[in-house]
């Protein structure tokens, strides 16, 4: 299991980068009430790289993640993920991007409460219409990877926060995404669980050869990252 850092690679940034953010700005509202969430941010993430995005609350981390993940559109600049210009994709392209390329880990886990852990993990595979047998095998593998084989049939309400986040990570990895976007994945967990989750995230990223962009305050995660990027008032201040 090898993580190849693209930190020093250059050449064609579009073809060489998994994520390329160029002069992206995003403003909410207008006039006096306008909030400049992200201003002229440029960033490149190489394939297989785990980049941690840090900054205080309101610094624009989530906005940047949303823009990168295709959940929001920048007002200016462009975002390229896996060679696709996200900012110009239509709804169908965005759906395909989220289904095949990017996956998300939410701060509040984002599990479907009426589905079991295994069923939650299987959702992305169903979206790709993976045959049941292959789906079951993949789900079992991922649950094993996150250490929840014995909890496969339990529903989110019957799992602890850490277990739920593990399920969320397993689900995020289910369709072997090229890019994993995680927003405060340990935000609702105690520190010990948070450390475990961070470790897991690092391990599965390496295992699945996935690029990851993680917003966090957690210093443990920062330590595990290939690179740490800091945002302040919507501006990239440190890399």
């Amino acid at each position, binding site marked *: 299991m090898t993580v190849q850092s693209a930190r020093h690679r250059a050449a064609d940034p579009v073809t060489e980068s998994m994520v390329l953010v160029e002069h992206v700005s995003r403003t909410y509202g207008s006039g006096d009430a306008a909030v400049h969430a992200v201003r002229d941010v440029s960033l490149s993430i190489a394939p297989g790289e785990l980049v941690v995005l840090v900054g205080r609350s309101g610094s624009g981390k*989530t*906005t940047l*993640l*949303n823009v990168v*993940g295709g*959940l*929001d559109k920048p007002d200016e600049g462009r975002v390229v993920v896996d060679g696709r210009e996200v900012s110009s994709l239509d*709804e*169908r392209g965005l*759906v*395909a991007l*989220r*289904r*095949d390329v990017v*996956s*998300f880990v*939410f*701060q*509040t886990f*984002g599990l*479907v*409460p*009426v*589905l079991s852990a295994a*069923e939650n993990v299987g*959702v*992305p595979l*169903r*979206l*790709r*219409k*993976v*045959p*049941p047998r292959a*789906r079951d095998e993949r789900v079992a593998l991922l649950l094993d990877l996150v250490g929840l084989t014995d909890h496969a049939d339990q*529903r*989110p*309400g*019957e799992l602890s926060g850490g277990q739920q986040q593990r399920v969320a990570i397993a*689900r995020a990895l289910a*369709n072997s995404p090229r890019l994993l*976007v995680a*927003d*405060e994945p340990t935000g609702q967990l105690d520190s010990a669980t948070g450390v475990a989750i961070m470790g897991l995230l690092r391990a599965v990223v390496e295992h699945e050869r996935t690029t990851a962009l993680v917003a966090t305050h957690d210093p443990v995660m920062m330590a595990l990252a290939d690179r740490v990027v800091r945002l302040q008032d919507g501006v990239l201040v440190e890399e």
Partner: protein
Amino acid sequence: MTWMPRLLAHRTRAHSTLLLAVVAVTVVAATLLGTFALLLSVGGDRAPQVALDRAGAQATTIDVRSTVGNNDHEKVAAAMEAGLAELLGPVDAEVRTWTSSPWLLVDRGPGLPKPLVYLADYPIVPELTALESGQWPTTAWDGEGVPVAVPVAAAEEYGWELGDVLRTEGTDVASEIPVRVVATYRAEPPRGQWSRDLLEGRVHLSDYPVPGSFGGSVAEAWGPLVVAPGTGAVIPGTLRLEAWPDLDSATPAELDGLRERLSTAQTDLYAAVPAATTDVLTSLDRTLDSIAASLAVTRVGVVVVGLMLLVVAVTVLLLAARLLAERRAAEQTLLTSRGASHPQLVGLAALEALGVAALATLAAPWLAGLVYRGVTRVPVLHDAGLAVDPGAPALLWLTCAVASLLLAGVLLAPSLRRRVSAVDSEQQEVRQDRKQALARSGVDLAVVVVAGVALWQLLRHGSPVLDGSGGFDPLLVAAPALVLLAGGVLAGRVLPLVAGVGEVVARRSRALVAPLTAWEISRRPRRAAGAVLLVTLAVAVGTFAQGWHDTWRTSQREQAELEVGTDLRVTDLDGSVLDQSARVAAVDGLSVVSPVGMRQVQAGVATGPAPSVSGITTTMLAVDTRHAGDLLRGRLDGGWSAATAGLAPASPVTGVPVPAGTSELGLTLTARVTADLGPGVSALTSASLVVQDARGARVSLDLPPVPTPLGDAPDEPTELTVPLPEGLGAVQVIGVSLRLTIPGDLWGMLDAQVWDLPWEAALGDVRALDADGEPTPLDLGRGQWRTSGGVPLYDPWIRLGSTWVDDDGLHVTGTPNLGIVADNQAALFTTSFDREPIVHALVTPDLLAQLSATEDDVLAIDVDGTVVQLRIDGQVPYLPGLPRGAALLVDRDSLLRATLVTGSRATLTDEWWALVDDDDARDAAAAVQAAGVGRTTTRVEAAAQATDGPLHVAIPAALWIVTLSAVALAVAGIALSATVAVRTRRLELARLQALGASQGSLARSIVGEYLLLGVIGTAAGIGVGALLAWVVGPLVTVSPRGLAPVPAVVVQWPWPVLGSVVGALALGAMLAVVVTTRALLRRASGALLRLGDEG
């Protein structure tokens, strides 16, 4: 507690859409129930007024009749008026007085018979008489007598001329009144209007019993002799007050009071009018009772469907309450965690519910008035006369207020449940709590048990209306609504089965959309159950309402059709049978028209060859069964043609044809008795011709008696004529009756040597004379003549001779015994048909039971004094025109043959029945009535009255309202459910979008979920509705008087309407789901998909 209003205000703003929907549903439901209240109150008050207005004078007038006798007529009149005024009470009435004198004998001179006459002052004289000569009298006395107008027939009979003074003497009252003839007049039809006349408008009766003779003597009776109106020219013998109450403007309370007083009117008036014999003659009490019973039945029907509407409305509100609770779950948890107590939370919900109830209470009565106005503008209700300004009666306000409170109170239901902790609440979201499931099962079981008991009671009683009394049992009335609810609850139990299948499908499926649908249904069963229950109830209500609507209408129509018995029925006949026949023949549109015998007869099981009748009184229907298919109406398995096959004689009667346009029949009659009874004894032979016209009217036309020589005295033919009515058409002579009379005391001759009286009679030169007197010879040889001697009992008393036709005519010989001639008359009856061996009959089970008879038994019935034997060929459950009770049906031709051969003069023409197209029925009835034949009833009109009349139309109106309301409420409820389902799941749905699910696929999943729930609900609803229509429908379909309907109810399935109702509901619900889902998904996704924005 000041936080409560503030919180309430904030929450109202935050949940404005959902609350608006809740208020709208509450207002709509309260409005609809208010409309039902208006149908019951305003419609219920108005309907009797309209019904009474349309019932006709015959059903609503009150007659008070006093025979004054020797009493002071002024005192009697005053007492009658006072008594009538007391009876009427506050009800206004137009009162007319009919005055007629006692019977008077007119002294025409020594040795001349004295005809009976009477003077009269009648209010109808100006409209219903035609002056023939002279001037109407204007004074009470002209110095020589009372000026009178006499019937022109009486003037012609007695040669009275204008100016003649007639001397009269009293019969029961000793008085002599000279009258002067100043005019002659003719009484005009309809004769029904003359019913208060002593001779009922007949003008003449030939054998009226002379008053005071106790039937010992009879006289020619003529009248009325019309006096100057309002002059007091008549010394009253009979006083009659005819009151026409203004029932249209009488209030229900006034009508109730009038009905109460009518029940004791006879005794009250008898006591109030001194010394005179006083009778109260009215059908108003029965009319009011009938209206009250019909109205009670209609009210029961409206309440039955109103309760169903209430069930649907409560279900929608329960669904809304649950959705509100789901929407507010987080808020409730927060409030609880911040220290809000359970009573405080309930108080908050109660405050909100009160607000909703207040809004609904204010709006619903006003809206209900609008709906009522709109509904009663629909042609059927407008024609029923229910389109009035409903105002705002107390019942409307009460209904709307109670309904609003009840419906808004439903919103409290979720908050009454004590909340568990936030954690427990989350756990409950994950897996359904077993305790709660058990509790729900218990409630479901209780609903099913109560519904089962109610249905069982309803089945036991057979109807929610108790014993035709108009009262009803609340449990029985609520039974259909309870069964509906139970059906909905049971349908919810199907969900787990479907969910189980869904889980299997989900496991095996590659995709997400279908499994997502299955998971949502199987793992959030309460939400799914709510939607299924709503659809089930709505479809069930629609199915039941439309099924019952069709069943009810069909049953009412069938009951009315059977009650009438034919397309056009003419009763209370006026004029002679041949006159009636000529008049109906002139009416266009009557394809088949036939006289019918419908009367009470004595019937018993025949006990010998010549039995007498000692049995029961039953109703006999004698119709031309050859036209049974055309004439008889009323549903019968196999039809009336098949049922009556075999009742008619094998071949029709063939007589001597008489051409159309014949105004008289002429003939010569020759008769002689070859025995010599000695000097001073004379004999008379009288003949009657029995003629039959094309419509089957069969009458005996009497010819004057001719002297009959005895012994060797020579006989001479006597020329005779008899008139036929104009317009009768072709007729046939089918029989001749000959009667031998020897006046004087024959008993003194009984010891004579001569007992046999050989008697010969011949009818010759029989011809038809047209209006110009031009003769057309009739060929007597066309008839197959046979002679009988009357009833078998008398057969030994007369020996039949020969019957033949030759060039001289029809000859009949026979030898009566002197004894029978002495006792009354000897008679020979010659007919052109054979005596039927026996008359065949169909009978009702009631008659069989009452006579303890069985099929093939022989009955004896008395028809106008003639005993006829009938064989019971079979039984039918009822007869046309006779839906209930003991009755028998015979072929009229067959019965008439049996009576004619015994010399009966029965015409068996009590009514006329006709086949007429539905479209022509009204005009034909009017034409028959205008022709003065009698009172008409049409099947079409009766059926229309039964279904769309003012007393009944509220039921179909209520059924349509409940159908449309159920569809509308269900669509609103489903839209509400889908809205809240998407809103409460919006974060979940947004996350699924983040995982790569498209908006379209998620929308498809939700639509599919509701489609599946809709299919389950629709299937269950159709099942429950069909069950209700099949089981309950017949029980709540009763006769207008609340009795079991005859014929029995046949459940109808109006498939196109049912399809339309289900289709409209499905389409409306799906449209609502698609629109709300897509809109909400589009609106919600953008914001919620942004990470970090979880709220």
